[in-house]
């Protein structure tokens, strides 16, 4: 159930030593932008997103041969990307807990972005999203920006569809409130 026929063909090519690198390059080209933006919306800075994304693909390289194909390739990739991003955010929070800076790490990074303008709608939305707890933020991003169906999201996050719907609805309410109050 690796997904599309493209993905199945890529997996078969990857398993053959002569075509492994070519197949892997094709997988990178196919999924790099989707995964990048998913990671970037969570970690905010490009340098951090680049580090996480490269780590994700290295894990894919090492684990793809043993990929069981009981889920779609793209679901599996999103799961790795989400876990790597959340782990990275936790590490950053631990580091910033040592410093005296009280502002949340991702909010701080968002405000430090080159083109940040708190008055513009898209930046205000990002600020609102950063107020959400980490996992709720993942749910909101996957649903609102990626338009991922709840069925697929439950496989990525290994959570029930009902819990994910509730999480998304709470996230929407908090964001609306934040934007109205700010």
């Amino acid at each position, binding site marked *: 159930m690796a997904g599309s026929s493209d993905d199945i063909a890529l997996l078969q090519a990857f398993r053959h030593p002569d075509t492994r690198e070519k197949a892997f390059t094709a997988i990178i*080209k196919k999924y790099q932008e989707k995964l990048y933006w998913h990671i970037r919306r969570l970690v905010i800075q490009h340098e951090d997103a680049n580090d996480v994304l*490269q780590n994700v693909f290295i894990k894919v390289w090492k684990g793809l041969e043993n990929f069981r194909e009981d889920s779609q390739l793209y679901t599996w990739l999103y799961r790795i990307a989400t876990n790597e991003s959340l782990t990275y955010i936790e590490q950053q929070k631990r580091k910033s807990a040592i410093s005296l800076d009280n502002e949340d790490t991702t909010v701080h990074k968002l405000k430090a972005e080159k083109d940040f303008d708190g008055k513009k709608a*898209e930046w205000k*939305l990002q600020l609102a999203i950063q107020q959400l707890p980490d996992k709720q933020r993942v749910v909101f991003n996957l649903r609102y*920006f990626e338009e991922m169906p709840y069925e697929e999201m439950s496989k990525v996050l290994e959570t029930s569809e009902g819990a994910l719907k509730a999480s998304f*609805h709470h996230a929407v309410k908090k964001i*609306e409130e934040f934007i109205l109050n700010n």
Partner: protein
Amino acid sequence: MKLSKEIEEELRELEAWTLLKAERRGCFSIPEGYFDQLSHAIFAKLRADETAEDAHSLLKSIGKKNPFEVPAGYFENLAEQVAQNATRHAPAKVIPLHTASKNRFRTYMAAAGVAAILGIGALLFWQAGGSAPVGVQDMVSLENVPDETLSGYLSDMDDATDLNDNPDLLFLSYSSGAEGSNLETLLHEIPEEDLIGFTSDFL
């Protein structure tokens, strides 16, 4: 980017009017050509990891085996050999580290010598210098003369004698004339030019 119908309906149910109106426009910027070179960067990292892993497994295969050989019975006889060598050789010459103490003694001696020379010189100077000004000696000796005698002497003197010509006598006349007086009070009463003239004789 327009919302799909499914998401739009969901947001309407939640009355999320802000999110419905918002354009899902990206606000983050990325370096130009980033995605073109990403696969190369990932392969470079994979190769670096492989090299590190190869080096690690090579070291692991070598292990910590010692390639050097040691003569038979070397460690058993070592203590005895060291003891023998220690008694055979004369103790090494001890060179003191603190030579500064000797230099310090010489410095103090030199300073004492200079101080002695200066002290002897000063002593000789004072001895040769000797006497105080004449007027003071006279004043000291006059202290032993009773006041009645002095006033009698002064009153016997020729009226033509102008005490102002003789500052010493002028001073004495002032001091003897005031019985039980305070010298400081006397000095205040004496005109300034007379005092100046008196002191210039001593300077």
